[in-house]
């Protein structure tokens, strides 16, 4: 039986640094290479999580574990983390068709944990641009998630 470790947290920055340490032959890595690596890692994280979520959703519909907090007098189904991530994945694909750079931004910030200055350097834009693009993308994606549920 699988046991989760309830006290462990999965900090994306910690994960990325750990992987970087393992992969890098030398600690003297140029900042842009490090960012490039983070970008790839963010993409990889997205894929890993989406595939894990999809795997959880595979198998017969309805036979899974939809346990939810009940109101005292009715059933409410809250979407599981897995389902929300899958919806986000689809919405991101849609966003990529409209604006690929913005999708990279969301991936890097949400899946990769890059901060604003890092994201600006990665995409070669100003921090103000990053903030604006992030704000608009977040609003649009939030609406897509809501519509899909």
């Amino acid at each position, binding site marked *: *039986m*699988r*046991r*989760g*470790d*309830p*006290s462990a*947290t*999965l900090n994306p920055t910690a994960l990325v640094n750990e992987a970087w340490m393992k992969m890098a032959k030398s600690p003297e890595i140029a900042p842009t290479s490090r960012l490039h690596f983070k970008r790839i890692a963010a993409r990889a994280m997205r894929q890993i*999580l*989406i595939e*894990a*979520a*999809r*795997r*959880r959703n*595979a*198998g*017969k*519909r*309805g*036979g899974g*574990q*939809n*346990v*939810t*907090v*009940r*109101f*005292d*007098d*009715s*059933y409410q189904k*809250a979407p*599981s*983390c*897995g389902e*929300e*991530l899958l919806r*986000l*994945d*689809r919405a991101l*694909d849609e966003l990529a*068709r*409209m*604006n690929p750079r913005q999708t990279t931004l*969301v991936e890097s910030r949400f*899946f990769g*944990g890059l901060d604003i200055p890092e994201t600006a350097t990665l995409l070669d834009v100003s921090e103000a641009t990053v903030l604006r*693009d992030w*704000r*608009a993308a*977040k*609003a*649009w*994606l*939030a*609406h897509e*998630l*809501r519509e899909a549920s």
Partner: protein
Amino acid sequence: MDSARWQKIQSLFHQATDFPEAEQRIFLESRCAGDPALLSEIMILLEEDARGASLLDGDIAQAAHHILNEPAVAPPPFKEFGPYRIQRALGEGGMGVVYLAERADLLDRGVQEAQSLNAEPEVQTDLYETLGTIYQKLGKLDQANTLLNFSLEERKSLYGSDAAQVAKSMVALGLLRDDQAQLPEAERIVREGLAMSKRHLPPNHPAVAKATSALGKVLEDRGSYDEAIKTLDEAVRLQSTKGAATPELAVSLFELANTHFYAGHYDVSESINERLLPMYRRIYGERHPRVADVLINLGAIKFDLGYYPEAEKYDRQALEIVQAWYGKDNPETASDLTLLARALIREDHYDEAVDLLQQSLAIKERVYGKVHPTVASTLNELGSAALLQHKNEVAEQNFLRMVEIYRQVYGEHHYLFAVALSNLGSVYSSREEWPQAEKIYRQVIPIFSESQSANHINTGVARIKLGRTLLRQNRFADAEAESRAGYEILIKQMDPKVSGLTNARKDLAEEYDALKQPEPAAKFRAETAALDSKDSNSTKK
């Protein structure tokens, strides 16, 4: 939406955010004159921006923690290969274990036979591929990988690296990768196999159709529903002949029906499934599990649409078949028992639902042991059914067990542990044991906040429930704080007509009355009245 329009929307969105909320619409109306759709799209963005309560506002670390630590649903047991019935590998009982040992013997013998066929390499590669596919169906993916790779390599050396036979191996390997959840790799390999088969075979050759169908399945599993539908439509077109439907066509249609279901096209999915039913009956026989699969899909469509009697009908038919095929003790049966029970609960047929859930529980406990999350999920259904029947003691027992399972499996900081506790709290509320209920909700709220988020639906529901326990203890100020906080969280995410929110509004009206604040009391009463009158005008499902 195309990128030019998205650009325009964003530009106006950002300009609008410079204005105070009350003036944003006026500004936009002047800039969007003649394009009401544009105005509407931007207003939606502004609303979401103001809400700030989506998955993206939270922490991916928490989401990742849940995804990577949630147990998978029970792995899909293989159904059949050839004429043999398959028992589940984990099944206890002498007959089950012996039966599976016979499978392994046969397969090992098959592999040995294949290895001795060096004098007939073409037959050998076919046998490797067949055996590999069987191992795949048995869930032994490593052995399947070995055999399918044998087949691929041998075919390359026999026919060259670009040949129809090699394409066939690539498609098989791609489908294995799909089962292994290596989806980008699966898509890459299947695409290559499909292109290769098109180079060497006429466009309507069965192998081309099969490769097309395989690509459709992989796209479906990747969630690329639009492309999956196009691809599967093409496979169906290629596989439709004037004669009787073939199993290959049926498989493509099945995947197409599923894809439409996941994409939310219930009507289309339903009509394809209805077409599939007689097809599967004819190809496999009336009592075959594949027929049950289609019935379950039809039941799932009906359930999601709220047509519970129809869902019950389909689930019942499916259960009959599955029970006869796999036996009463099989997890496949347990799964279908739960599906039927859920429909019955929606129809208030509690006695039968409980009976089925208890059967399901017994099977799961036998197969997975007494402390397993899938057992807990059935306990949850049992507890809920008992609560609805006001059988508080039974509900309490079930929820207590559920709490204990999640405590052991996930620990006391996991949201599922909190869900179980919270549902247990409903029992105390039902018995009007308010101090005990209060204690529980005060325990779960921080767990939800930390493990999910302060704005999660679970947090909101728990705060509303806490509010009610405080209201019933006449602690009106404390009650209002919790009820209001919970309500604000939920109203942003849920349909306001949901009965839990209606009751929350009633709680709030009572609290404001007691606090001598007539205006908010009236406001919440008015909202309830407005929604009630909308309801009586709309048609019920």
